[in-house]
């Protein structure tokens, strides 16, 4: 018999939400098919080839990102040094930085005239060429984005290992390797399937990076084919067919990942007792950190250096910039809040369920936004808004908030899901025997334990919408623009210095959110106790 407390309300709320999200996706596809009329879709692309190429690329990205993420989380968990919070913030910022910004940062390090090539020319007299293009370029950019994100999530899991366990481990004199096996791996294991699925989906549906760094049509994703079906051919039936293919492949990955049983993780506050690994392990940790910093942080630092130069004052002097910044903040805050509500409802309901099938089904809608191509989703939203009789201009803020919340949802659930599962499994019996109600369970047990994770999740969701360019592109107007849209427009008007300045400011805001919000919520959660 299950030791889980009975929480019918939580389960009902989660089911309702899951059904609502699934319904929204169906409505979106239906709206596009309805707009397509009876046009015969003759797709001009080789779907099998696209699926094969995209799967190879996404598979490589996932494997590399998880490996790199685990190594980096391990190093960051052990090392203490000045500026560590900033480095952690930078790594966390990678995932939500617009793809274009990261790609250009990457090029300024690895490109033909990048720092690495310049150093190589100065030191050895030859240039390394252009490693940043083609499949290697795509993988490099994806691993920077996704590996850093994986590291941040896994670091949170390692930081949450209770100090009592560490003390026991230390008193037993565990070697660095034994500690990984006995303490770190079990703590990280529960997050890996969900994380892996997210990274696979991100890489599978990647668009601007694949186009910019891929080198040409040889390296393409289904997403690009869908974009061209909608944009160039106006072949909406073909686009929906391609989208259905993409949704089918992605759903398979999602179902596999959500069927994985999460491993119970003991939770505790992240007061860090210092764990001294041996000198060999510490050397390795520093090596990992230095390599990762060159790989991850330097491209972002170069974005900051480029952007905080000439264009900055000109940008700050524009009323349009401040209005766009205010809009971005409003949209970001609203969608982060919506994401929190959705993610909590879904995760709490899922954690309260004992049956495996129900848990799998409840896990799936979380990934809606990653499975459905962004161009299809934004087009569908646009059509739905029109069908409901609103002008896109009036509905724009609400649609952008909802779409951004869906965009952040998989990340939010990956952050909150495993710890909530762990609470239900490890403390379910206690909660039952104390006879706590659902709200008491939340405020007395779950919220205090989740403080830091909620802060991290809010930071993620806030920054996702701060960096979004996919949804706003179709809904933006002269009076309703966000900072990324303004950046994109500056690039389109030769103003690359202004664009660089906006990119740098976005990055700074992201880092502040990532360093500040988890701390704030840890404090709030502490107070709630």
């Amino acid at each position: 018999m299950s030791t889980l407390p009975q929480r019918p309300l939580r389960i009902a709320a989660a089911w309702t939400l899951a059904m609502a999200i699934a319904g929204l996706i169906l409505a979106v596809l239906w709206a596009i098919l309805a707009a397509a009329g009876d046009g015969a879709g003759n797709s001009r692309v080789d779907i099998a080839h696209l699926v094969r190429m995209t799967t190879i690329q996404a598979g490589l990205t996932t494997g590399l990102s998880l490996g790199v993420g685990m190594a980096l989380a391990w190093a960051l968990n052990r090392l203490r040094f000045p500026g560590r919070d900033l480095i952690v913030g930078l790594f966390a910022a990678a995932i939500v930085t617009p793809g274009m910004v990261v790609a250009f940062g990457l090029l300024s390090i690895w490109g033909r005239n990048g720092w690495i090539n310049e150093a190589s020319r100065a030191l050895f007299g030859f240039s390394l060429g252009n490693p940043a293009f083609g499949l290697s370029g795509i993988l490099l950019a994806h691993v920077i984005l996704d590996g850093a994100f994986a590291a941040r999530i896994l670091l949170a899991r390692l930081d949450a290992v209770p100090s009592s366990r560490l003390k026991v481990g230390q008193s037993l004199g565990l070697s660095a390797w034994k500690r990984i096996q006995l303490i770190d791996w079990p703590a990280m294991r529960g997050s890996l399937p969900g994380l892996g699925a997210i990274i696979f989906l991100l890489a599978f549906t990647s668009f601007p990076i694949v186009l910019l760094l891929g080198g040409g049509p040889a390296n393409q994703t289904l997403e690009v084919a869908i974009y061209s079906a909608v944009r160039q051919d106006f072949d909406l039936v073909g686009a929906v067919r391609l989208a259905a293919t993409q949704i089918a492949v992605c759903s398979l990955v999602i179902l596999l990942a959500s069927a994985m049983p999460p491993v119970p993780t003991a939770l505790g506050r992240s007061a860090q007792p210092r764990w001294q690994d041996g000198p060999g392990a510490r050397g390795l940790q520093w090596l990992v950190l230095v390599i990762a910093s060159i790989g991850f942080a330097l491209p972002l630092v170069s974005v900051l250096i480029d952007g905080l130069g000439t264009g900055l004052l000109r940008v700050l002097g524009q009323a349009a910039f401040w209005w766009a910044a205010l809009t971005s903040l409003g949209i970001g805050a609203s969608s982060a809040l919506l994401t929190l509500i959705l993610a909590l409802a879904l995760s709490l309901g899922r954690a309260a369920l004992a049956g495996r099938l129900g848990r799998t089904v409840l896990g799936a809608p979380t990934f809606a936004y990653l499975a459905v191509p962004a161009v299809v989703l934004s087009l569908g939203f646009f059509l739905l808004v029109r069908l409901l009789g609103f002008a896109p201009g009036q509905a724009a803020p609400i649609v952008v908030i909802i779409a951004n919340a869906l965009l952040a949802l998989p990340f939010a659930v990956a952050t909150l899901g495993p710890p909530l599962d762990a609470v239900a499994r490890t403390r379910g019996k206690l909660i039952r025997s104390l006879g706590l109600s659902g709200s008491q369970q939340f405020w007395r047990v779950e919220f205090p334990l989740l403080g830091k994770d909620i802060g991290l999740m809010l930071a993620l969701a806030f920054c996702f919408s701060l960096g979004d360019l996919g949804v706003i592109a179709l809904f933006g107007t002269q009076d309703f623009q966000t900072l990324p849209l303004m950046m994109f427009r500056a690039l389109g008007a030769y103003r690359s210095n202004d664009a660089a300045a906006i990119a740098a400011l976005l990055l700074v805001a992201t880092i502040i959110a990532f360093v500040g919000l988890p701390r704030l919520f840890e404090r709030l959660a502490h107070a709630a106790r």
Partner: protein
Amino acid sequence: MIKSTSMALAVLFGLSAAPILAQDVPTLTIYTYDGFASEWGPGAKLSEGFEAVCGGCKVNWIAADSSIGTLRRVQLEGDTTEADLIVGLDTAIAGEARATGLFADHGLDLSGLDLPGEWTDAQFVPFDYSHFAFVYDADTVANPPRSFEELIALPEDFKIVVQDPRSATPGLGLVLWIKAAYGDRAAEIWAGLKPHILTVTRDWSDSYSLFLDGEADMALSYTTSPAYHRIDEGDDSIHAALFEEGHYAQIEVAGILRSSDQQELAQKFLAWFASAEGQKIIPTTNWMFPVVDLDGDLDPAFATLPQPEKTLTLSDEDILANSAAWIDEMLAAVQ
């Protein structure tokens, strides 16, 4: 928690209420692409100029992410579109736009325009033009190629960046350019270019940034692009390479939508836009040539730009019937 919710709601209502104001004056709603409506583009100055002469009207720009995006948007919206006008299609997609049946005749006399070739279009009014060209930095490229064949013959580490013809109008322009210059040999030219293509980007701006960052030796852009660097940055090093086979021109056009209830005001706007008054805004905001002779009002830097002797053209019907096949030919050759 409650505090931040009400704050979020306040922000929401504040934002959504903004566009509802000012409905009593006749309003011209114009769809255009992002760059055109941006702080740096011509949009704001054009509204200011026209609102001063129209006798109490308002111009409202709605920007889509690309010029083809504006057309798709009105196609989706059909008769219910808010748009009175589209500003920013080009001659390569004019045939397709015409075929939608969404556009009304402009009824203007455009015989006095200064364009490469005569303008006889009944629905679309040209508002600027430039020839597509590869731009290079004279500080790093001493001997730019003078034809596609010279470019192909260069060592493979001479790299160019181009745009995807499925998402960017210059990318489509290059497909048409090569087709107009080489006809049946186009696939061969693309195959020859393949080793030189560093990457194919979605937007013009991505390509141009790669070029400015020194990742590529040349980027597909316009003969007028150097004017921006000369005028706004005082930088003389960016030039357009002139090709012996001739250049394809992009002529940007505007058209009135049949569904608009502001036909007269829209015509007035287009007439003003195509006059010297409206045109003098274009060169230093959209960085293209005006379609009328501005004499002293055109920045002298534009006069120093070398221009191709030969303009290549293809007919609307030809493009409408074949562009999909030509794009496939290009994709197959560079894949």
